[in-house]
């Protein structure tokens, strides 16, 4: 069953068009990541779904019930949509348990539900603490617990890990995903970090300039981005020129198969490879290249190599020591994405399979 469905949604603030026609369907129990650079409209989309702002045009349907259109606006308190804002925003005047109980009706089940949710989020010992007595990660989990407590139709998370340091952020992201799955919640997570999106989500919607540029599984979005912008938003990428002939592209790195997820192309194209797809070796297989510089990154090494007069940055796994000035050989693994000209259009409908 579809949990949320959005049709041709637009929104402007003054003369600035923030959303330019969003279409989106998300099945129940799935997690969607809205991925995009700041200012792309992802937070605005979230706020429209939550009901904090009124839509310009279009329609939002949640659980089969229309909640927003140009003519009607269900206020946020009647949408049954959980919301986790940036930095959590736990009510400072209530204990953690008080925060979690906030959205629950008075009654017999209330205390049990609070206990259950605190257990789910691993906070059962901290119920009587005030927010200022909790660490950043605990506050964030508390905010999620509060949002989950009333069993909402959907949970919206607005860059919830932004304020945390990197390690905590990664760990918490996985943890939160686990909690969301355990509670079988449908969720939309706004983020600008592709790793966060891939780790947590069933689907990723890549947004730019008020539009959804691509919608799909994390793998599809990563390996078969529909255009160069999506490729850049979803991770590091190597762009080189090539000539396409149906399902194969001829490049300076040799012939590369075109991804099966993408339509066939002909003629001059831009080829997109992920840095880790290009393998480096001292054996003379593949294309010869000059190693210009290498910077050791721990688990991998970033290497700048020149192929002919083209310089590209690739990612080399493992502990292999690379010497600048050496000649190396490059081979390409897997399929590539290729775009002809600049005319790639975003697909109009984004529906999960």
């Amino acid at each position, binding site marked *: 069953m579809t949990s949320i469905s959005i049709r041709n949604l637009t929104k402007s603030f003054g003369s600035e068009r923030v959303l330019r026609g969003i279409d989106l369907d998300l099945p129940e129990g799935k997690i969607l990541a809205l991925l995009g650079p700041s200012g792309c409209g992802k937070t605005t989309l979230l706020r429209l779904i939550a009901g904090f702002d009124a839509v310009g045009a279009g329609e939002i349907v949640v659980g089969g019930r229309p909640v927003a259109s140009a003519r009607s606006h269900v206020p946020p*308190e009647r949408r049954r949509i959980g919301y986790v*804002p*940036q*930095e959590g*925003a736990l*009510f400072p*005047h*209530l204990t953690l348990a008080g925060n979690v109980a906030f959205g629950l009706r008075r009654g017999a089940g209330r205390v049990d539900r609070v206990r259950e949710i605190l257990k789910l989020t691993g906070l059962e010992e901290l119920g009587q603490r005030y927010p200022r007595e909790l660490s950043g990660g605990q506050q964030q989990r508390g905010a999620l617990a509060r*949002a989950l407590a009333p069993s909402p139709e959907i949970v*919206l998370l607005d860059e919830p890990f932004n304020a945390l340091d990197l390690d905590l952020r990664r760990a918490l992201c996985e943890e939160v995903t686990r909690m969301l799955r355990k509670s079988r919640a449908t969720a939309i997570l706004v983020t600008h970090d592709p790793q966060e999106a891939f780790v947590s989500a069933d689907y990723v919607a890549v947004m730019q300039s008020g539009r959804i540029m691509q919608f799909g599984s994390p793998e599809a979005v990563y390996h078969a981005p529909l255009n160069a912008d999506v490729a850049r938003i979803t991770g590091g990428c190597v762009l080189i020129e090539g000539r396409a002939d149906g399902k194969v592209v001829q490049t300076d790195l040799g012939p590369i198969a075109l991804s099966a997820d993408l339509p066939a192309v002909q003629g001059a194209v831009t080829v997109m490879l992920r840095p880790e797809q290009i393998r480096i070796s001292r054996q003379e297989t593949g294309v010869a290249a000059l190693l210009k510089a290498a910077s050791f990154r721990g688990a991998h090494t970033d290497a700048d190599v020149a192929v002919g007069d083209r310089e590209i940055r690739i990612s080399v796994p493992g502990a292999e020591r690379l010497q600048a000035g050496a000649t190396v050989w490059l081979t390409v693994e897997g399929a590539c994405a290729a775009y002809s000209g600049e005319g790639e259009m975003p697909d109009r409908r984004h529906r999960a399979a």
Partner: protein
Amino acid sequence: MSLAAPLLRQAQRTPSWLLIGTLVPSVLVAVPLFYVAVRSFEAGLTGIASEIFRERTFDLLVNTLTLAACVTTAAAAIGTAFAWCVERTDLPMRRAWRVLASLPLAVPAFVASFAWSSFHAGFESMAGAIFILSLASYPLVYLPVAAALRSMEPAFEDVSRSLGKGRWETFFRVILPQAGPALGAGALLVLTHMFAEFGALSLLRVQTFTTAIFASYELQFDSATAALQAAVLVLLCLPAAYGEMRLRRKIGVARVGRGSARRMAPVRLGRWRLPVFLCFCLSFALSLGVPLLILVYWLTVGFSAGRGHSDILPAIGGSLSLAVPGAFVVVLLALSPVLLSVRHEGPLSRAADRLPYIVHGLPGLVVALALVFVSIHYLRAFYQTVGLLMAAYAILFLPQAQSALRASIELVPARLEEAARSLGRRPLAAFMSVTVPNILPGIGAALALIALELMRELTSTLMLAPIGVATLATEVWTHTNDGEYAAAAPFAALLVAVSALPVYFFTRRSIGIEDIQ
């Protein structure tokens, strides 16, 4: 980190200048307490018992509590509602209302009471007093609550709405509790003001402990009764000050003045827009228009009009020459306790911070007599100097200065000073060069508020000001005392006009008026 911070802060050594700076106002405030205690015990234990258990004491208690509770509640309700409408709705002329709503502060309660009671005798009653004083004192709640609302994290409201709470419930369960410290501080000021109010009540025929204290001093000499009544007032202030302190501690620092990244879209009042607007107009007309109209009326009908016009300039000069330096003294003395309680939290610093609030309920007459007593007995050289009057001003108005300063001091992190220390500044120098420039807006607001209060102060000015110095307030008192209402009118009007300036400045400082959409 949040847990560790206060512990770390406590471990830090408190600079000695801060301790001394806190000791001075604490000692000052202890003077009237000492005086009240000494004079009370002159009555002897049986005297105390027979005074406390009189029927009249009970009557006064009922009256005092009724008045204080009703005015505080009404002022809190009006102030909070106004703050919410101005800060959060599409009320027409929001920007203008932001200042206009605080302007009734410029009308001294005794001027408003005089106006209303001469308009209709029905206002000379408990109900009338509650009506007039609520209108006169709601800005003391409106200003801090508006400032708190402005800087409150909007995400709280979003979350509450998403958890199924409507606007009303969100207001009462999320917004109001967080505006709690601001609301509590404002309400405490109103409450203690009501305990100490005399001028207005004497016109409105309401008997409270303070009017009884004045009466005692009118009727008898070296009065133990008055001291006992003052002691009761102090006892009444205690639970209020304690409750406010608890509220502040429980909720923690209100995030005042930080400003949120995202401005909230104003709530649409819809069909309520016009009625709410009319409510604002009505309150403005009642609290400002009526008193001013009555003053004009007297000016046109009274035969004493024009009498004493040559006193106007000296009176303005007298008002300013006392109020301006007085404001500086009071604000200077208020700085240390606030700093100490914010930076070096602990039971002692909290007590030093709250002590002035306990004495705030005492009328100026008791404070002035206490200072006469103490200076005559122990500091004779100090008697009848401006310094003694300044001390009285400090005792009377420290809490207001503290409230005005607190918000801006809370915003300046101790880290800034630590950075200055690491760059080689000594503690006081670090404070002067880093903290002071950053709290100047708060200091400005406090100066304006205290100057405003000092300009209308009457009793201790009469008793302690240098001989021959008249102020606008003392001129109003003199002329109304002689029944010369028309002669009093220009002084009263000037008092309102001169007061409007600090009110405007204070409003700007505390909630800002420029950056509204």
